[in-house]
């Protein structure tokens, strides 16, 4: 078949494009991933026992806000990264903003109360940081799969970058789910271990990107 015939064939498959279809797919994938991560959290570690008391609720809320701010900054960048021609113009460093804010808050607290810093970084128990890292990565697996599926509907041309954003967003969702279980209530803990766990997810996503996002 020559190229001329191919063009005729493609012309026959002309359906007006649905504007916003791609964004809708991504939003749906993130929602499905978030529900899956939350259910997985309930089914495995479960929510913290003292969830009813007001001060504890506040800490859960703070962790969820941090995690969702990562998702909120990452998702638009991820969306742009699968639209050819926009992928090089985006300010992808915006994705660092939530982390920098958390680190700045942690540093301020470290200066204010230097004697308790070690305890705050250590968390509630000696294995808190291990739990934090492994649970967040674990809970982010399903959202990552969902988001990657959605990204494949677009046209990523920088696979590593799109993969990293997918990991970042999935890590944020996983962190939001883990926040309901986590009993280490301090800002330095959140900045260090939540930040590291989400960054780890982004690295995993970047590694997967060139393999799973090719088209």
């Amino acid at each position: 078949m020559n190229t001329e015939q191919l063009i005729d064939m493609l012309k026959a498959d002309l359906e007006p494009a649905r504007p916003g279809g791609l964004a809708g797919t991504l939003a749906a994938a993130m929602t499905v991933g978030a529900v899956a991560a939350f259910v997985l959290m309930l089914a495995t570690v479960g929510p913290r026992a003292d969830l009813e008391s007001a001060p504890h609720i506040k800490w859960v809320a703070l962790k969820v806000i941090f995690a969702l701010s990562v998702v909120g900054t990452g998702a638009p960048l991820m969306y742009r990264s699968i639209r050819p021609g926009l992928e090089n113009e985006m300010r992808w460093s915006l994705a660092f903003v939530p982390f920098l804010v958390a680190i700045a808050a942690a540093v301020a607290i470290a200066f204010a109360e230097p004697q308790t810093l070690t305890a705050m970084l250590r968390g509630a128990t000696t294995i808190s940081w291990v739990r934090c890292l492994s649970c967040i990565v674990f809970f982010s697996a399903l959202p990552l799969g969902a988001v990657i599926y959605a990204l494949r509907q677009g046209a990523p041309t920088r696979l590593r970058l799109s993969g990293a954003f997918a990991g970042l967003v999935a890590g944020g969702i996983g962190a939001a789910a883990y926040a309901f279980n986590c009993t280490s209530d301090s800002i330095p803990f959140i900045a260090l271990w939540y930040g590291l766990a989400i960054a780890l997810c982004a690295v995993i996503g970047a590694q997967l990107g060139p393999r799973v996002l090719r088209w």
Partner: protein
Amino acid sequence: MPAVGIDETELLSPTRAAAPIVRPDGEAFASNARAEGTSPLSMEEEVQPHQHDLRALMIAGLDGDPEAYRALLKRLTAHLRAYYRRRFAQLGHGPTEAEDLLQEVLLAIHTHRDTYDRHQPFTPWLHAIARYKFLDYLRRTKSSYRHLPLESAEEVVAGSDIDAMESGLDLQRLMLKISAKARQVIQYVKVEGMTVSEAAKRCKMSESAVKVTVHRGLKALAMQIRRESRA
């Protein structure tokens, strides 16, 4: 689609790492594209009309105008043919490979046309896809990409070549690998020139089912082409 792993060590081997352009996922292009974006483009006046017309045709095509879409694809074919022949010549590859890749890219443009944002310029979108597919082609055929010069987005429409070349891919044969129903619908609409509603009546399917079948068939075909040219 089968996920094909990329051997990182190969990509980072000393000879290839020496050239900034080798990263097949386009990472290394970011700085180039940005740097070129700020420099005044000598070809700008020549390129602007292309940009304008192509974008208008693309938008009409997205709105469902088949003749505008056909005109667009014909124009893109000429541009991409010139672009790929030039690039392949730099690598010592022939025009047949360029034509194969051209067909793959036309299909890719078609199946991913909803990723174009109609408020944005058209050429960067086209160039990003053309460049991605070129690098993907080099990677899966394990070609060396050491001697590739830097390029700007406008290069993709800088030339035009209507001198068609028979592709090395046998699309008729590849079409046998997609589902019989999809093949039949595509044949009706393409070979016999039926409208979608006529084909729908003939196949006793709804119009939207015909559209979906054709659409899926083309996606499957795109995958077959990709698989074929990897071999």
